[in-house]
């Protein structure tokens, strides 16, 4: 797949998902990975208040929108609670973009370290999906694997990465809520 078509599939992802998810992860109220559990708890409570039928229309969007709202609310609350010490304001100025933080070598190396815990094949599957934007069927064809194997590699990679990143990225992403 050419970089252009990879870009196209990614922009499709942006259009549908990234906005609510990104707001939640890197917006003004961006959260630390360690806070995801608390956010999950709050989103869960809110979720119960909605009619099931309403959520079913587009459950994914509901979840991330709620998560973004919770995160933003918490960020505002913590901003008001904390004394406006110069030290705190300085740190805010210094790290106002999580995007930049992700570009930093430290974070990239950290993601690389987490990826290195995958098997070579899992890593190849994930790489083709994200770097080249291939579909799972295309990945299967390229690597000479069955679709089921690709699917499973995909599903085993995420929990592994989740364990690794949850522990290590917390420090790297010290943004948002104090």
């Amino acid at each position: 797949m050419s970089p252009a078509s990879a870009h196209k599939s990614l922009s499709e992802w942006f259009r549908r998902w990234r906005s609510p998810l990104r707001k939640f992860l890197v917006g003004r109220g961006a959260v630390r990975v360690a806070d995801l559990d608390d956010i999950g708890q709050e989103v869960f409570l809110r979720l119960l208040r909605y009619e099931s039928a309403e959520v079913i229309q587009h459950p994914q969007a509901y979840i991330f929108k709620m998560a973004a709202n919770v995160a933003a609310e918490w960020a505002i609350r913590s901003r008001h609670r904390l004394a406006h010490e110069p030290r705190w304001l300085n740190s805010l100025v210094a790290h106002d973009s999580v995007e930049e933080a992700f570009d930093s070598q430290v974070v990239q190396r950290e993601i690389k370290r987490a990826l290195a815990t995958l098997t070579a094949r899992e890593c190849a599957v994930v790489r083709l999906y994200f770097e080249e934007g291939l579909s799972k069927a295309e990945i299967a064809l390229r690597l000479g694997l069955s679709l089921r194997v690709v699917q499973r590699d995909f599903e085993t990679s995420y929990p592994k990465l989740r364990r690794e990143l949850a522990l290590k990225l917390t420090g790297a992403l010290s943004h948002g809520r104090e």
Partner: protein
Amino acid sequence: MDVNERRARVTEEATHWWTRLGTKAPAEVSEVDRQEFTQWLRESPLHVAELLHVAHVHDVLERFKLWNEFPLETQHEDDTIIALPSSLGSEGKAVGGGRINSNRRVRFLLAASVAALAILAGWLAVRTNATTVKTVRAERREVMLTDGTIVNLEPETTLRVNLGKHQRSIALTQGRALFHVAKDSARPFIVHAGSTSVRALGTIFGVEQKKQNIIVTVSEGKVAIAPPAGLLSASSSSNLPLTALSERQLPTQRQDETNGTDYPSVGSGKGSNSMASPTSNILSANVEREAQRVGRNAMASGEAGELFLVANQQVTIQKSGAAGPVEKVDSSRALAWSEGLLVFDSTSLSEVAEEFNHYNQVQLRIRGDTLGHRTISGVFKASDPQTIIDFISAGVHVVVTHQGSGEIVISPGS
């Protein structure tokens, strides 16, 4: 289940939902999927939190820029071996399907690779943790543990493996598995299923959980079984007469009316279906004779309420913990499932369908009680439900309806 285990399981579920619904628009996801997903989210805050974590992983991967530092060659990976001590911090997952060739050279190579892995693992390891190996519906796996033991997992089977310094402990929480145990006198190999434990003494044996009963069948060597104390039945030390299961004629296929008479159009011979023949070879008369020979060796009850089982013997431990009588069986027949074969002996069609459904994504449904109670006998390839459908159709007038790609309904013909 401890907190970490529970969380790990929820992470798997969340990943499953993420890849299933992923970045799809609502129109691309079925109403049923959305309903189930919503239901799942509403079950626990942990579910919501883990979904957010998984989304975070996805987001992180998307922003990763150093992909070219990872190679794309994967062809040389041997995916039938698991490094079980989870010393690398990750759960070992082998890929299903590939069967290990039983010839010695291949085994030696595998053992050598395992040894190499073990050395690497030992180097990195701080301690040995338990690892879960599981299969889903329609998935069979053969895995080699780091001690050289080979385990065949049947569909929908979960094993928890803990290879410690002094003991090799396996917990079978669901399904069934065949163990080719590697000898290691210093570390006994124990399989726990329900409240029963089976201690292997260098052997091949199968353990299955079926309707809350535990069935242990020995193919080679000897095992010691410890059901919950004092519950061995009086008959457990006596052998069945040689007219037991093993003596029946083997790979014929037969359809009976519910009263058990042979169905005339198919008969009790080879039958009109071709699927009977390939299985005949493995269930040969030699095995039969061997079964009888070994079976004559009287089996002794162990000292501390243990029950010893030798080759071609089988025992069923009931839910209550009571051990049934030891039966002499033809282990190749009783363990035919480990070869991908399903053996039915006057089994009702509803049970047959249930058994097939473990092994296949396409699910068989039998409509109507009369048809459901109809019994059949025969040996079938587990991965090929069409053979059973053909077989049923040959014996009785039925209507076979394909509902979408996932379900086949067999109803009585009018």
